[in-house]
């Protein structure tokens, strides 16, 4: 939508060509209703997959094969994944879905959808390292709530994507294991920290993916990779199973190749979770801010062809002055202004607003995030799980396990956070940052 010029793709965008192309949208059997009416399936891969499966135009196994083949072909160039699921297991799950469809049984709304999961989100059946050497080979005994919800809805986990160690970074170069390339230009970074998740969707190695966002880790790589990234409101999605970086800011986010896919994915994973005390109990809001009885983002979907010429007529949008002020890069500035113009064309009324505390956000973020991370990463001590340095002595065991296990970016943030929380500095740093945080809320 934005007027940014995207680089030419190094890799072709459509792995499913010849299989799903030009499948007309068809009404479905009454036994398996799909909750949409006028929305064209070709704007959502998830809906398109569902249509194809239910109409027997495509089997889940075929679909899985096509993605796995593409993954196999592209992965050596991009390095999105720290762990790829066993193809046999993926195909077995796909076969189960096909069998269910064959028997006319109910399948979940995400049946056959291949999702990639950022490696700092726990998955029971595969390694979850958070991109850190200290957790190399660690396999959690449980699924994160978000992952569990996706699986319950029929999604198939295709692998664990690369990230900056524990989400600390914005290039995916801070991973302990590999560097992920941008699918549009292999010489560039995909952004981060959810670079692997963004790149894998961009390269069509999976349909959608989960990432995590603490300070832009979903939004920025989505932008870098030309996919849709969504950072939900804090508390909307359960954090249970997300390796904590900064607990009060961490959010599990969604990547998709369309707004529709991202919305469907968010709908699937959001909602209160009894395992996360900070997850919101409020009913989900629809995007027009009316409390929805049926919390379904997809109900708001409209086919592009049925839109009026000015579909956003009546919507008032604030343009934050501080984001286009002096000091902002001219490229960024022009992109924001381009977007503003575009919104006006769609019928919005733009109004410039000022947020005086805007500039405080970043320093406050760094204090809060590093403080919380210094605490959250304390559990990686080599005692109960993960890599353990061999040592004769307890303090040396801690020191060496952590010295060898953490990368330099993580160590720096732990040091910063420890400093900010130390007696005598707490009031000057953490407390003030927290005040800013309350102010911004």
């Amino acid at each position, binding site marked *: 939508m934005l007027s940014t010029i995207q680089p030419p793709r190094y890799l072709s965008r459509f792995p499913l060509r010849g299989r799903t192309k030009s499948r007309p949208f068809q009404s479905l059997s009454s036994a398996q209703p799909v909750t949409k009416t006028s929305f064209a399936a070709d704007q959502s891969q998830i809906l398109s997959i569902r249509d194809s499966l239910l109409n027997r135009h495509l089997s889940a196994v075929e679909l899985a094969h096509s993605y796995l083949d593409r993954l196999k072909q592209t992965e050596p160039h991009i390095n999105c994944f720290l762990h790829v699921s066993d193809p046999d297991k993926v195909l077995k799950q796909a076969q189960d879905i096909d069998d269910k469809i064959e028997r006319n049984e109910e399948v979940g709304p995400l049946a056959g959808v291949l999702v990639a999961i950022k490696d700092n989100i726990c998955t029971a059946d595969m390694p979850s390292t958070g991109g850190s050497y200290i957790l190399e080979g660690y396999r959690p005994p449980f699924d994160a709530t978000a992952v569990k919800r996706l699986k319950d809805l029929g999604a198939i986990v295709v692998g664990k994507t690369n990230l900056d160690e524990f989400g600390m970074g914005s290039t995916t170069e801070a991973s302990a294991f590999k560097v992920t390339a941008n699918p549009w230009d292999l010489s560039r970074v995909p952004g981060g920290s959810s670079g692997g998740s963004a790149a894998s969707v961009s390269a069509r190695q999976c349909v959608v993916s989960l990432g995590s966002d603490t300070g832009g880790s979903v939004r920025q790589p989505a932008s870098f990779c030309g996919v849709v990234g969504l950072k939900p409101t804090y508390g909307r999605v359960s954090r249970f199973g997300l390796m904590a970086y900064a607990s009060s800011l961490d959010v599990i986010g969604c990547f998709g190749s369309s707004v529709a896919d991202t919305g469907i994915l968010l709908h699937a994973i959001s909602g209160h979770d009894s395992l996360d005390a900070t997850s919101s109990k409020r009913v989900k809001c629809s995007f027009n801010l009316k409390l929805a009885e049926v919390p379904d983002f997809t109900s708001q979907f409209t086919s592009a062809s049925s839109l009026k010429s000015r579909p956003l007529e009546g919507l008032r949008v604030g343009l934050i002055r501080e984001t286009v002020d002096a000091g902002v890069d001219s490229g960024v500035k022009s992109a924001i202004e381009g977007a503003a113009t575009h919104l006006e064309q769609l019928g919005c009324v733009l109004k410039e607003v000022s947020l005086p505390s805007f500039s405080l956000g970043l320093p406050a973020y760094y204090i809060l995030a590093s403080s919380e991370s210094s605490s959250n990463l304390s559990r990686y001590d080599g005692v109960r799980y993960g890599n353990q340095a061999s040592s004769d002595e307890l303090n040396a065991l801690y020191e060496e396990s952590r010295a060898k296990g953490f990368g330099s970016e993580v160590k720096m943030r732990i040091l910063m956070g420890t400093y900010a929380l130390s007696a005598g500095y707490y009031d000057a740093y953490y407390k003030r940052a*927290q005040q800013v945080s309350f102010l911004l809320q």
Partner: protein
Amino acid sequence: MASTLFRTIQIHPFLLYPTALFSRRNGVLYCTMKSSQTQTATQEKQQPPKVKVPQHALKKTVDKITKDYEAIIGIETHVQLSTLTKAFCSCPYNYGSQPNTSICPICMGLPGALPVLNSKVIEFAVKLGLALNCKLSLNSKFDRKQYFYPDLPKGYQISQFDIPIATGGYVDLDLPLEFGGGHRKFGITRVHMEEDAGKLLHSGNGDYSQEITSLTSIYIYCFDLLLIDTVGYLLQVDLNRAGVPLLEIVSEPDIRTGIEAAEYAAELQRVVRYLGISNGNMQEGSLRCDVNVSIRPVGQSEFGTKVNSLLKLDLWFNTSCRFKYHHSQGTDRRMHFSITFIEQSKSMELVEFSVSDTDNLIPYLQALLHGQGQSDQIVQETRLWEEGAQKTVTMRKKEGLSDYRYFPEPDLPEVILTQEYVDSISNSLPELPEVKRRRYEKMGLSMQDVLFLANDMNVAEYFDATLSSGADIKLAANWIMGDIAAYMKNEKLSINDIKLTPQELAELIASIKSGTISGKIGKEIADPVEIGKMIDKVISENPKQLEQYRGGKTKLQGFFSGQFRFDFAGLRPLMVTPPARKVMVVADPAPHSAAALQYALSHALLEQDELILLHVENTSSWKNTLTTFLKRPTIASAANAMTPNNSSGPDWGSTDVNFLDQMKYASEIAQPKIPVRIEKIDPDGKDKATVILSKSKDLGIDLIIIGQKRSLSSAILG
């Protein structure tokens, strides 16, 4: 550090005793606690100065110190809450279960796991806060307290820092009379919620190898165990206790003596038991006390640097004694309590030192008193109560204030209490010990009685129930503190185990009071006829109970036993010039009967008496237990003469032996002058107790002795 360790062992050889666990713990701490070089140097310098002080001079010095200095004691108490599940996950906690069998990703601190607060913890905290007269914070929060230790899985403990749930309360207590008595009120600084840590298992010898094997096999998540091989020891973590909810109660430094400290802890134990929020068992670690002691010159208002001593205040008496020695007898060898002094002369600069035994104490005190402040020898330390040696030992030296880097726990929302919630809990609180004591006091009971009755919640409940059944206050108190307490003590029972119900006790007291049964029955014992009358009386006065008992209400056994025990209570001491009596022992081939006979022979029978062995026939069911009687060691003293080579004795080997003959024979050997008669009686379908009583009446029996057995015999004598 090596020298430190060496020194410790040299001075405290008990470190090697009793288990490797303990010595290991010290070892680990010595090895692992980061200690600066200067501290080591301090340690080395802390050798007793080579000053020979004459004995009488020491005594004088100590007297002066105890007169001029006072102890300032504050206590931090951790109470483990008896919630069904842990504080932040759904794991149950049962003390003593196999290591790592009650754990989950949350209490193991696995990546991605989040805490969710158990609402019972809040409820219990509010209860305790109210019970300790605290002000509750309607808006409080949790914080993280951060430090590294293998028993702390997350690297931080979820606790409450600057806004505890309850603050500014007090606890009232009454000191035991044997320690001078008196009422005390100690301030409570705060009560806050937190989670417990796991336990370290130390293995140096075979003692723990079994636990380690089971640990390995039971460990459900297949993670690497902590294996630290230092000097041949194995250190492992049991996380069962990790995440168990605790309430920490911090007292004001109002406590001045060991007795007060012990009573403060005892009162907290009572309060948590009355509230039902913890079992308060110290042996299980459900109640733990950290005692902070410093000593200052009398009249000074600043406190010295504290010595934190983890004391297992298990045996109140021991503790009290220890504190007492500490306070009054600085030289007592059993008193190895560390003491911190502050010296006033250096204005605001606090000078303190600690000594770990009395050899060091005296010269240091002298040094202090003579103004030669040896500030370089002053160490703040944490000391551990050592059960085996009954004293404290150095656990770790502190370099100063630890920085726990507290900050608000972002994974948990704020704790918000509504006034209605607090009120509803406030209205549901039980009567607390202090209120109970004041109520008992108002009833006119002496402080001795008040403390006895109110100190144990179950005794207090029993007493209250007896009163509510209409019993006289003083008589009920006397009965409970006298006969019932003695019975409980002898039988090692709690008051909940005895069969006499409070209602029955109340009836008994009522009948004594109304004169139907005289409390001074001993005086009438001189007339043998009275005995029979008395038994008749007990039975006939209580036809309802007898009927109920016959109807199978076994609880009434306790009623009758109570009646008879009482009736016979005054008997023996009055037998100064007794007439010839008929003493009946109910005989059957069971050990308790043998014991009864032995008792009769050794205690009850006098020369002119006649012994009647009464057997209620029901032989078929008893035949098999015959050998038990023969083997019973308690008969041995009576049967000493019955050596196997005594050919004149009955045939012991036969299974068809008449045990009555054996008993008769044993009696004749033990008390040759006493005639022994055997009586058999056929119950004829009647209740055994009734048969015995009617028979004794027929025979004009003066004294019945029946062996203790939980079942039938207790129906008569208890």
